[in-house]
């Protein structure tokens, strides 16, 4: 099987986000950027499938600025084979990303595309499902476990209330959830090796995809701040405070 793994460069999950004073967005100047944590899980899963012999090639793709190359390098160091950077400084919405990915799928003909369930910057949770619809492929979202089953893929999904298993006819789309695996750290020799792996640069124009945004940002504001309350010295005090507040 050939697998395509889209990876997004996002603000590192440890960074405390600040809204810009002019309310146009969040301040991304000089903040640490990393691979979207869910995408690390996707890359890891693809690499494990390759190690197990079910996957022959892993292609990683990122839509973003020149620096998204570093994100692709990280994926290559984890074990992906080659990368595609679709370079743009514009903010590309999930629908635009999905349309670009559909073009990459047409060029590359993968059997499986594994995406993150959600990018931790826009928190959209859309791209994989949109890509599935555009390609008319089946989807297994929020994957907890993947099992190849002949020409099908069994996906156990994290759903409200428990777990659900679906069987997908390949080619298919999978989006991953947190419990699928624990991503590895790339070793130094693998980081060195990754420097020699190929990354092809493309542009949205070359794919003939219109990525102009459908949503215009009116304002970006700080959420209401919650004030810290009081410390109580013991359980008895806690209970009496809760009773007074009518909470218990």
């Amino acid at each position, binding site marked *: 099987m050939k697998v395509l793994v889209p990876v997004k460069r996002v603000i590192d*999950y440890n960074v*405390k*986000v600040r809204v810009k004073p002019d309310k146009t967005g*969040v301040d991304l100047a000089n903040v640490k950027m990393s691979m979207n944590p869910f995408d690390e899980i996707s890359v890891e899963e693809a690499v494990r499938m390759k190690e197990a012999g079910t996957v022959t090639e892993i292609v990683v793709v990122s839509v973003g600025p020149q620096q998204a190359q570093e994100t692709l390098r990280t994926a290559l160091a984890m074990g992906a084979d080659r990368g595609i950077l679709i370079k743009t400084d514009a903010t590309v919405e*999930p*629908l635009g990303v*999905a349309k670009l990915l559909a073009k990459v799928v047409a060029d590359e003909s993968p059997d499986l595309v594994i995406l993150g369930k959600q990018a*931790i910057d826009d*928190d*959209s*949770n*859309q791209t*994989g*499902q*949109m890509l*599935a*619809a555009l390609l008319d492929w*089946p*989807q297994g*979202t*929020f994957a907890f476990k993947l099992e190849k089953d002949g020409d099908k893929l*069994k996906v156990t*999904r*994290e*759903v*409200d*209330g*428990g*777990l*659900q*298993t*679906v069987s997908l006819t390949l080619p298919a789309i999978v989006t991953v959830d*947190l*419990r699928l695996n624990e991503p590895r750290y790339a070793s130094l020799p693998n980081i060195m090796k990754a420097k020699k792996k190929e990354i092809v640069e493309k542009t949205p124009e070359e794919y003939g995809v219109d990525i102009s*945004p*459908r*949503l*215009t*940002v*009116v*304002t*970006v504001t*700080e*959420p209401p701040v*919650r004030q*810290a*309350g*009081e*410390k*109580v010295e*013991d*359980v*008895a005090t*806690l*209970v009496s*405070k*809760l009773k007074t*507040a009518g*909470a*218990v």
Partner: protein
Amino acid sequence: MAVLVIAEHHHGALSDATHKVVTAAAKFGGDVDLLVAGEHAAEVVPAAAKVSGVRKVLKAEGESLRKQTGESMEALVVPLMANYDAVFIAASTTGKNIAPRIAARLDVMQLSEIIDVVDSSTFTRPIYAGNAIMTVKSSDAKKVITVRGTAFEAAGNEGSASVEDVAAPEGPFKSEFVSEEMVKSDRPELTGAKRVVSGGRALGSADEFNRLIVPLADKLGAAVGASRAAVDAGYAPNDYQVGQTGKIVAPELYIAIGISGAIQHLAGMKDSKIIVAINKDEEAPIFQVADYGLVADLFNAVPELTEAL
């Protein structure tokens, strides 16, 4: 204008989340129709027809819709959208699975997990784990929207909608339901619960989680939640995870036990009315949002609390 709301239901019962989505849809404006699709649809229709503000209930039953897969729901809803300006659905795992497929088919950009409807093209939604709130205007002709239930009041039950049958789409689809393993519990559903007791990594094992968190929750009639660390370690089932990438809760009382208060966790519970934190580290960030903070060893404090209530 007309809006289609996709109802969520389990085992023949209409979920409370649907009532909240109807409120959001009413704010959008126009007629609100409620689509009840899938297994047990017929049983759900009487309750659906009573939801205040609903004009018409569309009932779609059929083997292909049994588990509301993304593929079958896309096939059902996309043709219906010829008659609607917007489709609203709860931001549950079902809604999140289905809505983007519909949006892509309609060639529109979805609005995920909105917390307010400003007008029929302007919506508010959290980004960056709720550390920023974005108001956006959509230029698309039709809107596809998932709704964060905690941000809207539930619609009442004073309606009397008419009922219409819609044909289920013809299969077969390229995805098939195989099985499910649902957590059985008599406790209230997490996202709609009035009280929530959550445990974190500090519990140390599933046994301790069950020994300490569960009796306290039962005493309070509360739902049980957990941090990601507790879920990852197997102390609690996956769908107990509260946070940015788990469930969003806003109960009247939220008790966080042995949870540090990472931004990803706060994203899921900081709109709770009263927050209690029990943590032995007085510097834990959870105390910055807690109304009542108890610096204590949970292994002593929690049994004492359960006893005292």
